[in-house]
């Protein structure tokens, strides 16, 4: 018990003391012009490793853009809370890994990237699917197991994909997406037009995955061949139920590479994420090789819905993070202080988004269940095994009101 308390206290202290994770978001409005644009100071948001250049210490953003980021992040937050409620209402079954607390990471990366950049991530992918062009209705329909879902109900929570948005999902095996991401980076390099920057590939994974052998393998290949690969560690301080102090002998993940440079970004500040990723995309796209990007972030929920999230960390820690480092509160404060919106306007936006999300949930529930025959769809390029397999009459689809034996 004592060691648990001490380690969580250390985690809190470390976060407070770290230059990139300030106790209360400090920023100075560097300048404000009347034309609904402002420049924001980002000093202290970045730490670099083996890099001679660094991201800019300030970012200029227009009102529309910042409000857009806020709306996306708030939609993500409401969606994840809805998933929590629906899971507890037993409408979503199986595994469900929620992303709330980490919204700034997904939003910032999407803001800095072009649609031609490839993105592959782990199972904690609801919000990234949303950022990459998904809608709340298709995300939730997939979670409900309906045919209107992003992958027609075949994948569920951990498997969102979108071909038109260059989003490669959604992987269940920890770390397995990273060598695949190296392949995507290879494809980007192979298909790059001479004289132009390469499109990048980003592989997101957690601090728990950071010590997987296959990541070292991919990093070696990416560095050897100077692939435009971004190794993005979403460091939310806990690998499922084990804090980084206890599962990692070296928890400065951005310093993982010796030849590979790294950068640590304050993942609770969407402006810092956007500017940092702009810098990283530029660096990697110009053929300088891969980079480790460590996003300092936090998740409010447990690892998954089966994990209360409090057996290995303090409730005080969660509350403290919510009150001092919450990415949504930060954006709200930023908008108010920059004069982009006042408190009432923000409240109105929030109300509207809440209504919208509720509407989307109802829409998602209306989709029909997938046909039982679709179990055999897409195993191979042309379906061929359906006729060979028998489906018993009592097959259970996610509608658990139906009895075990269909009569």
């Amino acid at each position: 018990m004592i060691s648990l308390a001490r380690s969580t206290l250390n985690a809190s202290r470390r976060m407070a003391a770290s230059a990139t994770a300030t106790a209360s978001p400090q920023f100075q409005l560097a300048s404000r012009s009347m034309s609904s644009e402002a420049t924001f100071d980002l000093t202290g948001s970045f730490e670099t490793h083996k890099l001679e250049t660094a991201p800019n210490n300030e970012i200029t953003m227009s009102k529309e853009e910042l409000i857009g980021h806020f709306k996306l992040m708030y939609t993500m937050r409401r969606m994840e809370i809805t998933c929590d409620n629906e899971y507890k209402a037993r409408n979503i079954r199986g595994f469900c890994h929620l992303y709330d607390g980490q919204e700034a990471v997904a939003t910032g990366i999407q803001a800095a990237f072009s649609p031609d950049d490839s993105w592959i991530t782990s199972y904690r992918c609801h919000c990234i699917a949303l950022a990459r062009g998904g809608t709340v209705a298709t995300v939730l329909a997939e979670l409900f197991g309906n045919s209107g879902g992003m992958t027609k109900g075949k994948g569920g929570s951990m498997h969102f994909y979108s071909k038109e948005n260059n989003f490669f999902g959604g992987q269940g095996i920890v770390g397995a997406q990273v060598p695949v991401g190296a392949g995507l980076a290879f494809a980007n390099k192979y298909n790059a037009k001479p004289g132009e920057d390469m499109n990048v590939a980003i592989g997101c994974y957690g601090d728990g995955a950071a010590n997987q052998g296959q990541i070292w393998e991919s990093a070696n290949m990416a560095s050897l061949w100077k692939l435009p690969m971004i190794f993005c560690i979403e460091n939310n301080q806990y690998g499922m139920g084990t804090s980084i102090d206890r599962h990692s002998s070296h928890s400065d993940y951005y310093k993982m590479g010796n030849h590979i440079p790294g950068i640590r970004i304050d993942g609770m500040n969407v402006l810092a994420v956007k500017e940092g990723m702009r810098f990283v995309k530029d660096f990697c796209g110009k053929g300088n090789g891969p980079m480790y990007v460590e996003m300092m972030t936090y998740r409010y929920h447990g690892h998954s819905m089966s994990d209360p999230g409090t057996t290995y960390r303090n409730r005080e820690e969660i509350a403290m993070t919510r009150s001092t480092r919450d990415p949504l509160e930060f954006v709200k404060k930023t908008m108010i202080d920059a004069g982009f919106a006042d408190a009432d306007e923000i409240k109105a936006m929030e109300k509207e988004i809440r209504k919208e999300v509720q509407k989307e949930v109802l829409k998602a529930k209306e989709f029909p269940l997938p046909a039982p025959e679709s179990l055999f769809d897409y195993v191979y390029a042309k379906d061929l095994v359906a006729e060979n397999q028998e489906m018993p009459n009592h097959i259970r689809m996610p509608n658990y009101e139906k009895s075990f034996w269909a009569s």
Partner: protein
Amino acid sequence: MSHVRSIPLLSKTLRSRFHRGARCWKLGQCRYQSSTSGAFQTRYDDDQDDVVSSFGQNGAFPNSIPEPNLDALPGPKTSMNLFTAINKTLDTALSTDPSAIVFGQDVAFGGVFRCTIGLREKYGAHRVFNTPLTEVGIAGMAIGYASTESTAIGEIQFADYIFPAFDQITNEMAKFRYRSGNQWNCGGCVLRMPCGAVGHGGHYHSQSPEGFLAGCHGIVVVMPRGPKSAKGLLLSSVRSKDPVIFLEPKSLYRAAIEDVPDAEYEIPLGKAEILHEGTDVTVVGWGAQLRTLAKACHIAQNKYGISTELIDLRTILPWDVQTIEKSVKKTGKLIISHEAPITCGFGAEVVATMQERCFLSLEAPIKRICGYDTPFPLVFEKHYLPDEYKNLEAILDVVEYSK
């Protein structure tokens, strides 16, 4: 359990006559050519209505390409061994598909089995290159590259090294199309690797992992038996819309020599091939084992007058149930032989399916003549392998049983 019995049945003279020491055995000299269509003797006419199994009218892959008639192809034929046939096929793949890349350990100088000789000089270092010693990285990178509608031909140096990459194969490669609802696929991915016994390989250079791979639904597992089939199967594997694991029997790289047509041709995946038709016993195998089985069938025919039907499965997953079923319903007796250990080897799957489908046609229990349930041995290799005597004994046993 016939596979644990010793093999004293044949006299010493016979054994020395059919000694399998020949190094330069020419498959082309085997008198059993691949079958073309033709009427065959049905023994059990009343089973005819059941012959077309539920796999579909055209066999395992309903959309598969037709079986090429190799003798009717235009152009000359060249006598070549297995690694040359594979080399030429890789050359064709690289020249016809600008996105194709060949990579793996040591492929740049030509590969440890010389399958990639000359390719780097011809196509450039950006398309034919070495990777570090990272099977997981090779498999994962192949999957990622292939998912951008490109062709990735990866080489794993020995099939024994595939096991670290098993997660990538099972959880990424096999499920890529399925889990994304057909939005993404890694069909352009081919992982080639040498497999099987080679005489001195020992534990880690002799394994045949097709049994393990057969549980990964979503990939295709292919094993050719010689240069002619390797060329056609490799080309259709590279062009297939599904990811393929291409297992090359390493003992045949130099030893198997055939007259391979120069023209391009593709052999359909998911279809077995009947090497010679017969009426008494169905004998099924794949890869280098066909050579052994052909010898056993030869002795059975010439010495004992037993007419065997020898079938090369060619594709392990998904396998051609219909062809085997049709044959077993005709002969009533089945023997399956493979180098991999008997328990949970792929032969077990064939047995289970055939007893389910052909129960009333069977005249004898189905026999599996396989490796023993041990790690692949070094000094005991000759004793371990399912050689032609063990198979001949099995053929004689089932014929005897059925009388």
